[in-house]
């Protein structure tokens, strides 16, 4: 059964052969939160998000989304979430509009809901008339914007966004951040990963530092900065690593 907590992870371990990617990760995300996972490359951010997106199976531990178990109830979870992979590709020979329309028809039954979702996504993407062009003609930033629009147009209870602003220029990155905030104000929740500490500081309501497969600090951005007496999250992260 679903409950009010959006994400609940306890003692999550993920091993790939002899490599331990996650070693006892625990955190939770509540309704209306934008939760940021911060850490260097190879820290375990993407693995955590992939487990939440039902793409990978945990080796051990307890992982629930809206009360549903990621292993046993994966199909129910897939109806409530949307996932944006860091390197998500696009279908080269479809137009942006066709792609959004196909995805909308997978999620919504009524024609009206589909049309509304596609219109909303087209607006979110900010691609204008280019939305009618084949996606092979899009720049990296345009592809990213269409994927962000795709991920949020389905109004997921939980949006799992791996580096949502990767490859975007400063204007479009800001545009995407605004969309993420609006998604949360409309009742959604978000868990995202990012290398950009500044982005996390301004966007996330709560965050966790992850390093070598372990959560080493969790809290609100201001709380974390105050705790270590630093002016930004980057300094806080380095301070945590030192201790």
């Amino acid at each position, binding site marked *: 059964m679903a409950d009010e907590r959006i994400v609940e992870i306890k003692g999550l371990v993920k091993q790939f052969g002899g490599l331990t990617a996650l070693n006892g990760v625990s955190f939770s995300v509540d309704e209306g939160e934008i939760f940021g996972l911060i850490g260097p490359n190879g820290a375990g951010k993407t693995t955590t998000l992939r487990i939440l997106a039902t793409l990978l199976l945990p080796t051990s531990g307890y992982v629930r989304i809206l009360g549903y178990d990621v292993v046993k109830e994966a199909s129910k979870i897939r109806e409530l979430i949307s996932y944006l992979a860091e390197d*998500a590709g696009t*279908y080269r*020979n479809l137009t942006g509009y066709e792609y959004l329309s196909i995805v909308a028809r997978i999620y919504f039954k009524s024609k009206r809901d589909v049309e509304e979702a596609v219109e909303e996504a087209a607006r979110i993407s900010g691609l204008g008339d280019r939305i009618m062009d084949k996606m092979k003609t899009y720049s990296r930033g345009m592809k990213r914007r269409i994927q962000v629009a795709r991920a949020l147009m389905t109004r997921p209870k939980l949006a799992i966004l791996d580096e949502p602003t990767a490859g975007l220029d400063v204007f479009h990155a800001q545009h995407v951040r605004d969309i993420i905030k609006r998604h949360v104000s409309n009742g959604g929740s978000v868990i995202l990963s990012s290398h950009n500490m500044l982005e996390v500081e301004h966007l996330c309501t709560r965050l966790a530092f992850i390093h070598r497969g372990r959560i080493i600090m969790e809290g609100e951005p201001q709380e974390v900065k105050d705790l270590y007496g630093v002016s930004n999250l980057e300094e806080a992260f380095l301070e945590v690593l030192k201790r």
Partner: protein
Amino acid sequence: MRGLRPLVEKEVKDLLRDPRIYIGLIGPVIMFPIIGFAISMAASQAAEAAMGELTVMVIDEDETETSRRFISLLSNVGLKVIDAGSKSLDEAVKSAEKSGSKALLVIRRGFEESLRQFGRVNIEVYSIMRSMGFESMGVQAAVGNVLGRASDILSSTLISKIAPNVDPEVLRNPLNVTEYTVVKGRVIHAPPGSIFGQIVMGYGVMVPVFLFVIAMSVAQIAATATAVENEEKTLETLLTFPVSRYDILLAKLLGSSVVAVLGGIIFAVGFLLYFQISLGGLGLNLEMGGPLRELPPPPPQSYILLAASMILAILFMTSLGVVLGALSSDVRIAGSLLGVIVIPIMLPSLLIIYASVNSLPLPLQIIVYAVPTSYPMIMAREMIFTPMPMQVLYGIPYSAALTLMVLYATSKILTPEKLLTLQHKIKMRRMKGKAGRELE
């Protein structure tokens, strides 16, 4: 099943707009008529050359009245004859080449003497080949034809001398054979060879060739479509949508099959155009099934069985393509795997073109029956004589079960974790093989 329709639409649109796919599809409809046109042109040129003036050089070593009359006979039946005079063979060959003669004929000494004694006479023909094209072949055939006519006239003259009141043709061919063939109780006015040729060409070869092309294209399309999802990193997103793995596979299967069948129709049109143009150019009779028209056509249930076995064979090959595509991290690897796996799978069923299954050794029979693509080929071959062959009736549920098993097994590996592990293993194996070859 909610997501199936949009997913199939995605597959069909994405595939039909992919140059790697549509160029392959459009290719036959352009290439076959061009090849047919080229053959037709060459054949017309050959025919024109054969119809035109044929010049031959002649060395007359016999130098008798009979040999001179024979040379004049050659002129009367259509050859322009140049006398080589007293040239040696080597000199005459060079001279014939220079003068544009198509052949050099040598009438050996003793020509008249042999004919007088009703013995065989020797004529040596040195055909002068200037190219390996149709034109050259046509000209040489025309020279042979003229010599044949001259031989007939000679033989008629000799027979008339011995038996003036006898038709020379009766002596040459005393038996007048009219052949009939009995099929399914009906007498057909044609020799069995002609019936066999038409059945083999019409059902036993055309259907297998058509099926082979569709089966190969469907496997290739499905493998490419799935491998592209890996290559372009779209599969990961697709697997997080609220659709079952089975629906994703089914959409790939249906999308690839729709595109492949479309490709098959285009191929068939191209192939027919090729025959129409090339055989027309060669002046051959295009009418297929002449004597076969006298046979009762197979009943509708035979065609239903043929269609069912064909659809299942196509779906089986598609499912194989999807598996290979899923196991490939990029399109190149998918192409290599296709060559290694799909062609050997298709080969046993192609044996049916050359021999009936029962005439094969038992191990080969087992292999043939194990492959779903064999059943439409068996059906196509047998339907004229047996409307509902038992082996095909058993083969249909078997093919359906095998296809479902392949699909089920594929849906089980369609998780990123398993796919990534398998793709990594295949990639490493391929790299090891490549490194090994480079070291060698």
